[in-house]
């Protein structure tokens, strides 16, 4: 670290006030504080500044996403070789997946940070590292074969329209990664849904009995009984559930493995970065609505979704991923503790409603979180107002009684 630190200190004068690259100070500052904890003291009074600033917070979230990313990479390769009916060694499987997923990650980061840097230099702001997390989330919610230019367009749209127009990191109303995902879903529906996109590089050479649909798409027809997905068939329903839980089923890169997401959730909760209130209430909301709708399954036999056991909702599709990594976004979620329960619960409820009652939108989780992002300030407003009213009443009681 020594030579690195010396390098940073050596070039600093060029970027500082009066230096020849003054214009690019945000760029320098961004990199320097990424490498070393900044030594900014507080200006008034004695406050202890915690070393865990925004950058280090973001790094913990990235760390929490690593299990999902690695399992996602493995799963991309696994699904590919199953679908074309070839045996492959563990390393081949993983390398194939990495070869597919890494370009998505690189493009997402490159484009997103590029847009961010341009805006910071124009406005003379400090570079904020909000995109460190969004840049990783975006590839994780995309199908593995997504064309890179589409990803580029979506990332530019999400960063500019979703974030920069509202004033940059911390000011956005909608979750940036989900804005990119929603943009892709509505702009290029053929590449983001259906049964062709979830398994990488298959073309026409597929095995017998191949079906490329995701679990959610099959539920609508079969009511939870899934005999096979992609190139694999399941001997029993328990096998299918297990595959869904550890994540060896077709889907977006990072959302298939509930196990990896739970590991990420543990990291987030342990470090105090992700809100357990939101995660728990999202799950609770999903289950509650699932049981409610499940009760109607006898009346509407056409909709297979009604018949699936409610806990399936938590395992399949983007539900778990959204609950842990998207709904807990500290910028767009409710800020008050009791607001977080309401916010999370309604996300779970809405996600299940959209999935079950409109099977054309298996992306119920995405739409539910975006909708509740918009509602979060309203929830907070009523929570704060409620608190004020309660206290006022107490004051009145005290003075009159």
């Amino acid at each position, binding site marked *: 670290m020594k030579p690195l630190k010396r390098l940073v200190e050596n070039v600093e004068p060029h970027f500082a006030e009066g230096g020849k690259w003054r214009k690019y100070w945000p760029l320098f500052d961004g990199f320097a504080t990424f490498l070393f904890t900044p030594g900014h003291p507080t200006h008034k009074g004695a406050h202890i500044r915690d070393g865990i600033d925004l950058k280090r917070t973001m790094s913990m979230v990235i760390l929490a996403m690593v299990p999902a990313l690695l399992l996602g990479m493995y799963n991309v390769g696994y699904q590919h070789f199953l679908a074309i009916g070839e045996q492959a060694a563990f390393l081949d499987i993983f390398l194939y997946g990495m070869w597919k997923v890494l370009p998505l990650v690189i493009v997402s980061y490159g484009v997103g940070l590029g847009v961010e840097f341009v805006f910071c230099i124009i406005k003379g702001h400090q570079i904020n590292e909000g995109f460190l997390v969004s840049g990783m989330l975006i590839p994780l919610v995309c199908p593995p074969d997504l064309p890179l*230019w*589409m990803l580029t367009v979506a990332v530019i749209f999400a960063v500019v329209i979703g974030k920069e*127009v509202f004033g940059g990191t911390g000011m956005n109303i909608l979750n940036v990664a989900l804005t990119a995902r929603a*943009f892709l879903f*509505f*702009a*290029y*529906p*053929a*590449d983001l849904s259906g049964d062709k996109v979830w398994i990488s590089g298959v073309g026409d050479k597929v095995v017998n009995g191949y079906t490329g649909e995701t679990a959610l798409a099959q539920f609508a027809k079969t009511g939870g009984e899934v005999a096979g997905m992609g190139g694999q068939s399941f001997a029993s329903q328990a096998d299918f559930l297990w595959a869904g839980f550890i994540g060896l089923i077709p889907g977006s890169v990072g959302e298939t493995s509930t196990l990896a997401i739970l590991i990420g959730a543990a990291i987030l909760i342990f470090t105090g970065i992700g809100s357990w209130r939101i995660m728990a209430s999202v799950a609770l909301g999903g289950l509650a609505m699932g049981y409610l709708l499940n009760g109607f399954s006898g009346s509407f036999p056409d909709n297979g979704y009604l018949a699936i056991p409610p806990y399936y909702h938590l395992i399949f599709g983007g539900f778990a991923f959204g609950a842990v990594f998207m709904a807990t976004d500290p910028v767009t979620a409710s800020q008050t503790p009791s607001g977080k329960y309401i916010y999370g619960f309604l996300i779970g409820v809405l996600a299940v409603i959209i999935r079950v009652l409109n099977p054309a939108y298996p992306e119920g989780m995405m739409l539910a979180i975006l909708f509740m992002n918009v509602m979060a300030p309203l929830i907070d407003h009523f929570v704060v107002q409620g608190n004020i009213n309660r206290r006022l009443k107490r004051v009145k009681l005290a003075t009159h009684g």
Partner: protein
Amino acid sequence: MSTESIAIEKERKPLFTSKDRKLITDPLNDDNPITVQVLGICSALAVTVQVKPALFMCFGVIFVVAMGNFVISLIRNFIPSRVRIIVQLVVVAALVTVVDQALKAYAYDVSKELSVFVGLIITNCIVMGRLEAFALANKPGPSVLDGIGNGLGYSLILVAVAVVRELLGSGSILGFPILGQWALDLGYKHNGFFVLPPMALIMVGIIIWIQRSKNQKLIEAN
């Protein structure tokens, strides 16, 4: 909404004074009905999927605002102010019906595409806004110019949004394929989001963003 009323001098003046010119040019930029006054947004979202219907819509609105302004300005001294809204509505409704019937007679397919939005010109805030803010207080000549100016300001934004939406949403402009088969062969895909109304709202927002960053008069003091 701008409520300037222009005092007209009594003496003879040239055909187009600089004030008259401003009546036309102001609504194009500094006082644009869509991006500055933020009126008539609904139709801007609804008819801008393609350029052709947007153009017809523009002609319709220019005609209705200009003629409405003219008629109201002519009879402005006879309208009791308590019933002026109803009088304005009658005049506008009559003009819109003329536009609607003309479209049905000579451009039936466009008329079908525009459907209810021709009729809704009646409720377009730009029309009522100009009648209230300008025609009721000014002579017929300037009123017509003001109507044409505001109609053009509206059209400018509508056509700009429609060009982008048709080009990126369906790869053509006025039906001519620009990003045609050759682009699709290269792996390009039309962006379905541009066909949906939210994208029109975002486009109008982007235009407002660009305009406010360029036009010094519109930058609000902090």
